[in-house]
Every structure is written in C-alpha cells, then in structure tokens.
C-alpha cells in the first residue's frame, strides 16, 4: 500500500503540491490526471524518493520514504518500478543491459544465463523479440523505447509500477499498444499501477480508479464511473472539455 500523507512541495514561490493526501491500495490501476504543470510527475517522483517533500511523507508498504536510510530506500525501489516520460534509457548500454539494471538494485546477482533468460522473458512480455536485447536505445523507435522502459521497470518483479505519461509523444496506434500493454501487465503480473496521463480515452481503458490533481490538491479520487458522472465543474472540464465546461469551471 502507498500512503501519501499531507505532502507539500514548492519550487521557489511556486506551490506545486499543497497538503496532498491519498492512499493507493494494492491491485488495479490508478490514473492521475491534472492540468500541465500541476505537479503530477513531482508527486510520482516523491513516491520513490527522487524528490524530497517540504512537508508530509510517503509511506510504501510501511516504510517512510522521507525517513528511510539508503538501504531501506533501495528496498522500496526494488518493489517500485518507474517508467519515465522520455523512457530515460541509458544510451551507453544495450537494451539487455538496460533491463538488467532493473532486475536487482544491488546489481544482478543472477548468473549470466539466468540474466539473459529474464531479459528475454521481459522483452516477450512487452511484445519485443529477444534479439532486440543486443540493440542500443538509439536504434529503437519511440514506441519500442517506451516498451523497453516498461520492461526495465518490472524486470525485478516489482509490486508497483509508476508510469509518467507513458503515451505522450507517441502516435495513436503506439499509444494504444502501450495502454493495452499496461492493462495486460496489470492483469498478468498482478502489479499495482499509478499512471500519470493526459490521455483520457486510453486511461479509461486501463484504469479502475481516477485521481484529479488540481491547483496542488486532490480534487477528485474515486472509481472511473464516478469520475465520468461527476458534476464538479473542474472534473467536467476533463471528462468533456468544451468552451462551456471550461467557462463554467
């Protein structure tokens, strides 16, 4: 379970998160919406300790990220995979080496053959041929890079997967493929996912719960159907954006 308790974060005078609290229980996928620049990615990065909060805390499976030492933080990161917006694959490493990095935070303790088998298994799960393992990120398309980034995120049998705008920058076909992949992985691997996205249609396909971050606070959190039917003018702006709903908000 991931608990976010009274999280606040400012960059200079810009208050990005203002006393944000919510809980993500195990299982299923939570889609986190919000206008651009509202702090969705910042919130996600707090969960694995990439950013330190000004106030509040994040607790992952009982471990406080704010107070965790190096070892505890690494143990949490072993359980939480992160898919970055731009994939963030290491240019100097092959696809296989990139995936191996995600297998064990203390370095791959598996034997070489076991490592290769796990890499092939991860590539298969994201619908890529095992021969891709020998290629370098620069040789892959944007959609393939995204799939490798997802493979790296779950290569260590992580319990949670955090996706930072996984379909941004992809054409509709690739965006749909990635969305299906996220849904398939949630079912196949039984991981809990949090997906930051602007892509409402694809999010509705994969998410079972929605959270809306607006002006630094959680404006809505609940099941997808409740989100669709909400009368909150801010929520309506996202569900059916039009000149009328934007003016009404």
């Amino acid at each position: 379970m991931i608990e976010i308790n009274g999280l606040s974060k400012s960059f200079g005078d810009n208050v990005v998160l203002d006393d944000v609290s919510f809980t993500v229980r195990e299982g299923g996928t939570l889609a986190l919406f919000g206008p651009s620049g509202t702090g969705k990615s910042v919130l996600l990065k707090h969960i694995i300790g990439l950013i330190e909060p000004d106030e509040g805390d994040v607790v992952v499976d009982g471990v406080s990220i704010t107070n965790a030492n190096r070892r505890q933080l690494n143990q949490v990161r072993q359980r939480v995979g992160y898919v970055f917006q731009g994939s963030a694959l290491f240019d100097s490493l092959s696809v296989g080496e990139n995936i191996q990095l995600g297998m064990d935070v203390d370095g791959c303790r598996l034997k070489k053959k076991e490592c290769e088998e796990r890499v092939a298994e991860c590539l298969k799960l994201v619908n890529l041929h095992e021969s891709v393992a020998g290629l370098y990120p620069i040789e892959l398309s944007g959609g393939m890079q995204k799939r490798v980034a997802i493979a790296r995120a779950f290569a260590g049998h992580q319990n949670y997967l955090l996706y930072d705008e996984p379909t941004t920058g992809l054409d509709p076909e690739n965006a749909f493929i990635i969305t299906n992949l996220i849904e398939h992985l949630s079912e196949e691997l039984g991981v809990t996912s949090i997906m930051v996205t602007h892509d409402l249609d694809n999010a509705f396909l994969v998410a079972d719960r929605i959270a809306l971050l607006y002006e630094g606070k959680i404006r809505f959190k609940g099941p997808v159907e409740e989100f669709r039917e909400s009368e909150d003018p801010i929520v309506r702006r996202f569900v059916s954006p039009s000149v009328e709903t934007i003016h009404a908000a």
Partner: protein
Amino acid sequence: MTENDRQRPAGTGNFIARIPAAVGGSIITVLRHSAGLTLLTFQVVLAIARPPRYYRALMTQMYDMGIGSIPVVVLVAALAGAVTSQQSGYQFTGTVPIWVIGSVVAASVLTELGPLVTALVLVGRIGARIGAELGTMVVTEQVDALRAVGRDPVEQLVVPRVLAGTLMLPPLVVLADFVGIAAGLFGALLTLPITSAEFIYGVRTYFHDFALWFGLIKAAVFGATITFIGCYVGLRATGGAEGVGRTTTSVVVSGTVAIMFWDAVLARLLKAFG
C-alpha cells in the same frame, strides 16, 4: 523630481541600488558552489570507500581519456616543444652558451608546458565531453532513472571519471614531456646552430628527478580537477539543449580557471617542498 534627480544620468540610481544585491548574489553563488563542491567531494570519497562496482566504467573511461587523447596531446606537445626551442634560440644565440637551449626546453616542458598544455587541451576534450554527457543524462532523466533502480549516480558516473582522469593524466604528461623535448630537439636542429649532443647536454644538465615528479603530481591534480568540475557542472545541468550548451561552456571556462589556479598554487607548494 528634484533638481539633482534631473541632472543624474538615467539609470544611475538603479545601477547604484543594484550593487549591494549583485554583490550579495555573487557571495551566495560562491557559497552555494563551495558547499556543492564540498558535498560532492565527500560523496566521492564515500563512494570510493565502498566496494567498487564500476570496474567496467572505469576501464572504458581510462581508455577513452588515455588512448583517445594521445593524438591531440602529441600534436600540441610537439608544437609547444618546437616553439619553445626556437624562441629560446632566437633570444639566446650569441649571448649564452648554445646548449642552454636544451636546458630551457627541458625545464619548460617538464615543469610547465607538459602538464599545463596537456591539461588545457583535455579541459576541452574531456571536461566538456563529461559536462555535456552528464548534462544530457540529467535533462533526459537518465540520472533519475539510475537512482530509481537504486544506483548511486556519484558511484556510477562521477567516481569512474574522476579516477580515470587522475590515473590517466600522468602517463599522458610523460608522453607530452618526451614528445615536447624531442620536438624541441628537432626544431633546434632545423633552425639553430646547435648539435644534438649540445642540446642533450643541456637537457641532462637541467634534468633532475624532482622536475619529473613535480610534473606528474601536477598532472594527477589537473586530471582530478578537470573530471571533477566536468561532473559537478554536468550534474547541475537544467533545461534542454540550451542548458547542456551552457553546461559545456561553463565546464571549459571554470576548468581552465581552476587549472591556472592549481598551477600557481602547486608551483609554490611543490617548490617549497622540493
């Protein structure tokens, strides 16, 4: 508006009012960088103390910094040695014994030109590359991705580069010393009334072990400085391509200044001990 205000050139008041803020801002910047450099030094020392997991990265960096730099180091050292012998020849001919040119070339190359020219060339070749590489990794979230998989960016990125720079600069300087003196000899033979025996006699007259150690110690310090500054500035990159460009410029400027600073300080320190 008073009469005095009308007579004052436009903007003067604002300019004077901004001086304390500018001075204060500069002091804060210096303090912030001092704290940042100290913290990174501390992190590097801690990372070196842990069991190494960067052997492959270290080998790659050593190869790139060492073997990859040989052509440019040889070229620049040869030019420096040849120019030094010719300039000395023009000034000394007829005033001091001609073999002194060998001593001047050896002294210049071993204590100053070898380490300094090598370091300044490598600020551009290695320092700028490290700054751009790490800067790009920061802005494309690769450094965050390293941390997300539980790796320490200082251990994985900074330590191999700093160790490689510290270890590879001394052999490069030895090469530069050899090439510089050899080029000085050939330059002198081609343009001055001197024999190779006279030149070598001059070199031997000057040469003492400490001169070589002096150059090697400087080289190790310069190597650590270039790579450390490259890493420090690179890891602080912000923005996109423009930010990486600024990072590269900053590495070259601050690296050059730091090398000149260390050159002056080490000259005093090492001569005091020597």
